[in-house]
Structures are given as structure tokens and as C-alpha cells.
């Protein structure tokens, strides 16, 4: 025994004493957030292809504003978690490329300051921060946010009055193009599904290619970085509800395919509604949340005053999340289902 004795005494003071479990899965919150950021980059790049440098300027502006606000409000720590970067990118993607940049910057500030920091920071906010910023801009600048530039043209041509001075408004002499949903709502003209699928239509920066957004969402779902139940239930509800309407009166209601591919539905279903903080934590809750959003989107688009309803549908359902969570608590192992409901 003695010849086998190895002196391990020296090791003792450096031994750690953490509580179990001592192993941890490799994923962390920062990695999840930054992966979402990386999957948004191809969507931004495609928007740059369609809307030129204006789109990139706008997304860069909202992102810088959001990250800067996070730094001002959150102290030194949470910036590196990447959530403010996501907020800024998503806000930029919901805006028209030709909007004055100062409005975008203001939106980025509102997103993080009012949408997140006031609630207590990451994890505490009730509403999707990017959509809070967009709702603010929609209320403050209703004209600028619905002035849609035309797809195509030279990359370096500005798509509007990006460099308008603050509080001066846009001169708006750029060539504009109605969005597919606007055409449908106000002129009853359908847009070809192929154009919607690949993104060659007017609209917000990120309302371009349904295909690309679906691909990025599929990757995130495969990595389990988003809850697949949310986009699947939203898209299925929109498809189902609008199919019923289309069957009742094909001349009055658009096709389900048009409803699915147009407007901000894809971006909203894949990237906005799936924000973990503002969506239900239970699997059943996610289904309820998604179905609710799907129904509201169709209701607002068909019967509401606005051509597009994704933003308000998500914000309304965000408000219900605490109640959905409470109503859909999991059944505890070894406890009959009835006992939980009481």
C-alpha cells in the first residue's frame, strides 16, 4: 500500500464545493440569443438585395439604438446576452426601408426603454419589445410607417428620405409601391404567390421572403431555440380560418396561401411570437397562444381597419400570457388531473 501512496494533500484547498448537479448542458442564454441574431442576418441581407442600402441603414440604426439603450438602462452586464440586438434587428425588419432614420432610432430607444427596461429588464417584460417600439412608431408616424418603397433598383439609391432631420418629417418623393395586403384590402387585387414566397414584393424590410424566414425558423426549431408549437399553431390557424372564409365566398376573401405568405405573418410567427419571455412556458399554453394569434390576424386583416394585424395580434396575446400560463400548469406526476384543476 505504501508504495502506491500518492500525496493528494496539496490538492485539498483547491477543491470546489458546489451543490449538485455538478454537470451542465452546453447551451446558455447568450448562445441562444446570438444564434437567433445570426439567423436574422440572411434575412437582413436579402432585404438589402431588394430594398438597397436604405434597408441596411434602417436595420443598423434600430439595432444601434436598441443596444445603446440597453447599455444605458441595464448597466454593464446584460448587453452581451444579445437580446437587445435581436430587438433592434426585429424592429428594423418591421419598418419600411425609406423611413427617416431618426424615427427608427427613436423606435429602438422606445423598444428597449419602455418595452423592456421599465418592466425590469430581460425576462420581466410582458410585451415583445420590438413590437412595442413598432406600435409606438405606428401611432406617432402613421404616414411614414406606411410609405412603402418599390422593390428593385440600384443598391446605392436611397428609398426615401432616410436622412430627414428629426421632427422635420419626410419629403417623400420616392417611388412607392402598395403592399400585397394593402392591394388586397383596398383594391381587391391579389399578388402572385410565387412573388410572396421569394420576397419580390413591396412592404416592410423583413416582409420579403417567406421561404427564407421559414428556413431560418426551421433551423432554430431543430436546435430547439424556438418553440415550434407557436409558429405551427399560428400558421395552421391562419390557413384553416382563411380556408373556411375562402370556401364561403371566394370572391370576397383571399386565398389561404395569400394569407399565409403576405405581410408580416412569417416574420411575426417565426421570430416575434416565439420570443420566449413573452410567450407561454407550457406546451399547451403555446398552442392556445398560437391559435389566438392566428384568429386575431385573420379577424384584423379581414374586418379591421388596418390591412395588417400581426403586430396587434401578438401584442394582445402577449397580454394574456400570464393567464394562459396559470391555466395550463402541467399535471404533476402521480396527481390525478382533476386535483390540479381545483
Amino acid at each position, binding site marked *: 500500500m505504501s508504495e502506491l501512496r500518492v500525496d493528494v494533500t496539496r490538492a485539498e484547498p483547491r477543491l470546489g464545493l458546489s451543490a449538485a*448537479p455538478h454537470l451542465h448542458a452546453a447551451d446558455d*442564454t447568450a448562445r441562444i440569443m446570438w444564434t437567433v441574431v445570426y439567423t436574422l442576418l440572411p434575412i437582413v441581407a436579402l432585404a438589402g438585395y431588394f430594398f438597397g442600402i436604405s434597408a441596411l441603414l434602417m436595420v443598423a440604426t434600430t439595432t444601434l439604438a436598441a443596444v445603446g439603450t440597453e447599455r444605458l438602462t441595464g448597466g454593464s452586464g446584460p448587453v452581451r446576452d444579445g437580446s437587445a440586438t435581436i430587438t433592434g434587428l426585429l424592429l428594423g425588419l418591421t419598418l419600411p426601408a425609406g423611413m427617416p432614420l431618426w424615427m427608427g432610432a427613436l423606435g429602438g430607444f422606445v423598444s428597449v426603454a419602455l418595452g423592456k427596461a421599465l418592466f425590469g429588464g430581460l425576462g420581466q417584460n410582458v410585451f415583445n419589445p420590438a413590437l412595442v417600439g413598432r406600435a409606438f412608431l405606428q401611432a406617432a408616424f402613421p404616414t411614414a410607417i406606411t410609405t412603402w418603397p418599390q422593390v428593385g433598383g440600384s443598391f446605392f439609391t436611397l428609398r426615401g428620405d432616410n436622412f430627414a432631420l428629426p421632427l422635420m418629417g419626410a419629403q417623400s418623393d420616392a417611388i412607392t409601391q402598395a403592399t400585397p395586403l394593402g392591394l388586397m384590402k383596398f383594391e381587391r387585387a391579389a399578388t402572385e404567390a410565387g412573388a410572396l414566397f421569394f420576397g419580390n414584393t413591396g412592404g416592410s424590410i423583413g416582409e420579403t421572403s417567406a421561404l427564407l424566414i421559414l428556413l431560418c425558423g426551421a433551423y432554430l426549431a431543430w436546435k430547439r431555440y424556438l418553440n415550434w408549437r407557436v409558429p405551427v399553431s399560428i400558421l395552421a390557424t391562419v390557413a384553416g380560418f382563411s380556408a373556411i372564409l375562402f370556401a364561403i365566398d371566394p370572391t370576397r376573401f383571399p386565398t389561404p396561401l395569400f394569407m399565409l405568405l403576405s405581410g408580416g405573418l412569417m416574420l411575426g410567427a417565426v421570430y416575434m411570437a416565439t420570443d420566449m419571455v413573452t410567450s407561454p412556458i407550457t406546451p399547451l399554453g403555446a398552442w392556445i397562444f398560437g391559435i389566438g394569434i392566428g384568429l386575431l390576424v385573420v379577424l384584423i386583416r379581414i374586418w379591421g381597419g388596418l390591412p395588417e394585424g400581426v403586430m396587434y395580434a401578438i401584442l394582445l396575446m402577449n397580454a394574456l400570457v400570464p393567464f394562459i400560463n396559470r391555466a395550463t400548469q402541467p399535471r404533476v406526476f402521480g*396527481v390525478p388531473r382533476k386535483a390540479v384543476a381545483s
Partner: protein
Amino acid sequence: MSGFSHGVHPPEHKELTSGVRIRRMPFPDEVVLPLRQHAGKPAKLLVRRGDHVERGDMIAAADGFMSVPIHASASGRVADIGWYPHPDGSMTEAVRIVVDRYSAQLPRPRLVPQWEGLTREQAIAAVQQAGVVGLGGAAFPAHVKLAPPKDVKIEVLLLNGAECEPYLTTDHRLMAEYPERVLYGTRIMMHALGITRCVIGVEKNKPDAIAALRAALPGDLDITVQPLTVKYPQGAEKMLIKSVLGREVPSGKLPMHVGAIVQNVGTVSCIGEVFETGLPLIERVITISGPGVRKPGNLIIPVGTRLRDALAYCGGLTEDAGEVIFGGPMMGAAQSDLDTPITKGISGVVVLTTAQTAAQPAYPCISCGRCLDACPVFLNPSQLGKLAQAGRYEEMEAAHLADCMLCGSCSFVCPSHIPLSQMFALGKTALRRQKAKVA
């Protein structure tokens, strides 16, 4: 049926020792035997300082039914009776025996009980007198499970060979190398319980153990070996019952309320040994593994061997060793004192590196729901965690904190590195203290 819902997949790391044969560690210079090595009342001391004891002699007697005796694990002299470090982190009364270097370490001649002739009560007494406890970790006295209350009907004996903790291969090697002994113990347990059916649950990552057990199955007993999904915590009693029988043990109840008795395969093997050699529980198989130890292996060690001696026999710690854990890395307790003895219930020593145990940055809860997908008893760890941070323990109790078995799956998956199960352990302790105060 071979699985349960939810659970997690920690890296298994079993390859370090899964192919290493069990070998006997030489007797250390001294052993330290705490009087409290089992759930229940500590044993009552029988020896005095200076006494000479032979290997297998009883040095402390059972104090009531919920207690077991302690036996000398080596021949030698009682050098001291005093306070020694305990695996749970406290100091405890223990007997230190200086091992006689020139002893052959042979036990005294003894009668081996013949199980066929024993009544149920005699078999239970024989198991208790041998000091047998659950070897899977909880160290629950084995004879108590052989004596279920009269009003419950036991249909099936479930042997737990899942061994779902990373690194540990104690039960794996035991089943692969000593299947006859496991099955002999099984026969005695079935006899004592008066039941005819037994299922041995083994995770599929141990094909050699499954094959060895199947090859050794006796023709006259209804024993089946059931391969189980490789998933943590497959070896938790309630999960094993769900996987094998498809039954849920009701909240707050025991396995016997769904007609099952669960026993670890190591414990059953120990019972087999008692009726084979007449020797009480004085040694056990243990895995010493992890990247922080130089020569990982599976050892038979005398109970009471100090951590320091066992690690030294395995080549000592590496330069980057960061934490020494009794049990597996998911539920085991980190040790600060290398003089702590390895008691009856310790199934493994895992040494992790500083890189593995480095503190990770914590983020706020982002409600990703991974803990809900992981929790094998379907709790809402996210919500429980928020209640724990606010110190709202009564509300945690209403949210079924008592059903949490501290398996650590929620903490394992949490991307924000929130110490969920750690806080639940604190919550359970706080609630116990509150109740003790009220009572």
C-alpha cells in the same frame, strides 16, 4: 414500455470504467466507521478504545427496527472513538480502527444462514443483523423493505440496474461479472416477500450486463430482464416503476402502494453474499472515475476506507482536479475533506476538473420552458425558482415542492444557469425547519 416522459441526456462518460474489471483494493492503514451510515437511527456503540476486533465483528448494534448494526471492515485495534467528517458534510461519531498489518483478514468462523428454512421474520432479522442498506445511494435499511405493512399487497420485485448517473459503473460491472450472486439474492428476496414475479430494469447502454443476467436466469423463477431507455433519471424509483410497469406512484405515496418493491441490484447482490458467506456488509463495489483521477476503476473496498486512500490507490488526483464528489455528478455531494470515509451508501467517487465545475454566468429566466420539458415529475421549475428567490416557501409547497426528488434535471438544462434544484433543496430544508418549530 421502456421509458418515462421528460428527463435529460447528460453525457454518460461511462467508457472510462465500463470495461474495467472489478478488483480488490488492498486494506488501507486504517478505516473510519461512522455509527450513522444509514437512514434511520444511528447504531449503538459496542466497543471501547483499545479493543481488538476481527473483520466482520459487530462494533455497533441496531437501535430499533429502523436501524442496522455496523461491523468492523478490517481486523485491527480500535484506536479512537471520536468525531470524524461524514459524507453529508457534518462531523459524526465514528470508530477508527488501525488495521493489523500482519492479519490475514480472515473473518471468524460463522454459521451461514440457510434461506430455505427461514421464516419471513427470520430472513428479515438475518438481513438486518448483516447491516444491509440500500447501496444505490439513499442507504435505506434493506430489511425494512422486506417487511411491508400487512394492508398492502406486493406483486412484483423491481431490481434497479438502471445506473443512470454519468460516470458510475458500479452496478454495471456487478451485473456483468457477478450475475449469479445478484440472482441468488433475488431468489432470497422473493422468498422473503412471498412473491413470484421479478423484473430487473437495466439501461440499454449495458448490453453485456443484460446478456450476463439473461444467461444466468434460473428456470424455476419468473424473473425477466427489461432493457430501458438511456435517459436520466431512469434509476429514480418512480421513473423505474413507470418505465417497467407503466404505473404512476401517487404523489406522497411509496412504490408499495402500486404493488412494487424497488431494490438496487447492488443491495440484492449484498443480500446474496450474506446468505453465501455469512459475512455482513463490510465491503462494497465502488466506481472511482472522472477526468480528475489518474487511474479510474471499479474497486471492492472495505467500508470506512478514507477518500484519500481510495484516491491514492487510483493514482491520485490530476493537476486540474476541481471537485471530488460522492455518488454521481447529478445528485452526488462534493467533499471538502479527503479524510471523509466511504460509507455503505456511497456508490462512486467522481472527480471533475476545474473546467467542468467552473462557475458559469447567470442570466435572468427567459421562460424558455426547458425545465418543464426536463422535469420527470412534471413540475414547473421556472415558477418554483421564482418563488424560491422570493423566499415564498409555503407557495412552493402548494406547487408540489414535495414531489421534487432533487434529480437536478432542471438545473442541468437551464440555459440561464439558474440553480433551480439547489434552491429547491434549500426550500425543502426551510419548510422542514418551519414545521419542526410549529410542532
